[in-house]
């Protein structure tokens, strides 16, 4: 005759991780995004190692635009962190300010990118001009689309829940994770494309 206790095996330890569910979701999303950009970057590196003439092609890239863009993105990551700090401190006004600045900086990145593309195309460098340019436009273009996505998300956060509630705190944190990821991808793209 079994004692009930051997058939009911209670577990006292907590079952879910201490990571909040939303954050877990965002991390899985970012993991898959890493494989997308990682794949593209790996293809670029491997193809470049096996080709010639890429250094000369890359010489036509401006240095001013990417430096400005790096500044813009890094600053926007900082303002995103400050937005998060604001919502933790329950300061709705500062939250709105910093979210707005982040959005504007993101738009600024896209504008600079657009200007850079037009300058390059005016000089006759299109995606089909050569394999280096194909990778350049492909990688920076995909990245820019992700920046645009982040801008839209931040804008939605700004417009729909402008006050520093608990829900908003989580959302700002998750949007911040995504935004930092987009920033980090740029940190990889910048040297790979512009400094080699």
């Amino acid at each position, binding site marked *: *005759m*079994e004692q009930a206790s051997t058939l*009911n095996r209670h577990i006292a330890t907590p079952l879910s991780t201490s990571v909040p569910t939303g954050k877990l*979701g965002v991390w899985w999303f970012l993991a898959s995004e890493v*494989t*997308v950009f990682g794949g593209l970057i790996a293809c670029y590196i491997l*193809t470049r190692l096996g080709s010639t003439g890429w250094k000369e092609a890359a010489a036509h890239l401006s240095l001013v635009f990417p430096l400005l863009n790096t500044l813009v993105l890094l600053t926007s990551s900082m303002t995103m962190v400050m937005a998060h700090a604001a919502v933790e401190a329950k300061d709705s006004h500062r939250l709105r300010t910093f979210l707005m600045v982040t959005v504007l900086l993101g738009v600024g990145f896209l504008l600079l990118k657009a200007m850079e593309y037009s300058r390059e195309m005016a000089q006759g460098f299109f*995606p089909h001009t*050569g394999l280096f340019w*194909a990778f350049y436009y492909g990688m920076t273009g995909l990245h820019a689309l992700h920046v645009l996505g982040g801008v839209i998300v931040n804008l939605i956060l700004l417009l729909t829940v402008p006050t520093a509630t608990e829900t908003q705190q989580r959302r700002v944190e998750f949007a911040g994770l995504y935004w930092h990821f987009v920033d980090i991808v740029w940190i990889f793209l910048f040297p790979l494309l512009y400094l080699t």
Partner: protein
Amino acid sequence: MSDMVVAKVADVTPHVYEELGFWRKYVFSTDHKVIAKQYLALGLLWAIAGGLMAYMMRWQLAWPETPVLLFRWIPEPFMYDGYMGPEFYNALVTLHGTIMVFFVAMPVLLAAFGNFLIPLMVGARDMAFPRLNMLSVWVFALASLVLFVSFFVPGGAAAAGWTGYPPLSARAEYTGVEWGLNLWLIALALEFASFLMGGINFLTTVINLRAPGLSMFRLPLFVWMQIVAAVLFMLSVGPLIAGAVMLLMDRLLGTTFYLPAGGGDPLLWQHLFWFFGHPEVYVILLPGLGIVLEIIAVFSRKPIFAYRSIIYATIVAGILSFIVWAHHQFISGIDPRLAMPFSITTILISVPFAFVVFAMIATLWKGAIQFTTPMLFALGTLANFILGGVTGIFNGSAPLDIYIHDTYFVVAHFHYTLFSVTVLGGFAGLYYWFPKMFGRMLHDTLGKVHFWLTIIFFNSAFIPMHLVGVGGMMRRIANPLQYEFLQPLQPLNVWITVSVIMLLIAQIPFVVNCVWSLVAGVRAEQNPWRANTLEWSAPSPPPHGNFAAVPVVYRGPYEYSLPGSAQDWLPQDYEVLTQAAARS
């Protein structure tokens, strides 16, 4: 009488679900069960389309250049009074593969079963992100629409194979297909996005939303299989997304990622495709294996043999699946020195799968086997999967692959592995969980008729296909009679076609059964199969919110036939009181 007593805390949670209108309840629903049924419906519709395409291809192969029976109504430029041109044949080949892998296997095995069962099996009220879940099914619906539209654009649907190798796929002039292939790529990208969202949901739900007492090693194996599949998918699809972006750029912007004339390399696509492609076949395989494991336990009335080791074996197989991809490329022009390393990893992957197969058989040992319809399908899956696994050894050996690559031997192999686990396993799951999903029982005799017809005609079609492959018949040709050395094989081709036709007809009992049972079937009780896992503790079908009270879990999922107990099952959330307390 049983000495087990159910002890549940009564706790009714209020919900405003009932007041929602038709659109919010059935179309734009965030309820995982509704979303599951939406995926199921879309997947089954595509299965009909994919099956009919197979019929048309097989007709052409058996009786080349004759009008396809019953298809004279298809207008030009697709077909000409039932006659098919080679471009259309290539489109059928391409879309049959794409549809079956991405628009049938994924939505039915992963999304439909996963969405319906995961929250129930972990004792949750819904997925972690219900609105993301709704978005994922609508993105999938959009992907379906894009793929559907791709048939009707000038130039027709994609025709470069489901593998889409460039340069054939990189420039429209090589195939004559323009927007059809672009839309194919876009549909795939949308499908990937949908399943990435779904994967995030599945993983987060299982990690964070388990009921009290439900540790990871008390999860049903179906759930474990789904999360390993989700991880495999999420980590492998990225490079293909990158590759698809590059292919789309080649087609739309004139870049030359894959064209040697511009410094590119056609083999780059192959590596990116198969780096994803191989884990992908395990992604669609694992849920079906999980279904078979659940059903075998229930209808042998025995615990699953070596539960933890099965989990470890599956994880090992998942890791190995990332280092076998070039076995699809042995003679593709890669450095020949790479062939044997990939051949070795490929053949090694047979070991963890052999483990799982042996564990399934060991579960049957000394069981008390009930041959219900779900059990028949589960056993059929196992029996056929063994043949598929064994032919994998042939394909994985590089020197042998010199001969059998791109022949029908490969086609026979992957139909035995994929069809048996996704289709037969899918049917096993449908017959088993239909009562829970729809509150009605499927007619059992009709189910058995469906089973026997399906298994007989499936084997009748695909066993001879191995011989056709050994005879050297190449894949993706429309007319075997154009080749002298293939003419002795033609009787086999005719036999295969006739079997495929019978196999398709054999699905009619299933359709009839579903429709009839939905309307007039016997109403299902809460736990008609006397199973242990948590979904059977919810009503059939479960209401929004699933459980009256969140279950508390006391044990693993396979405590069947415990010695000394009166009944041969003990659900995970039943609290056992002492016998003395029970009798008083």
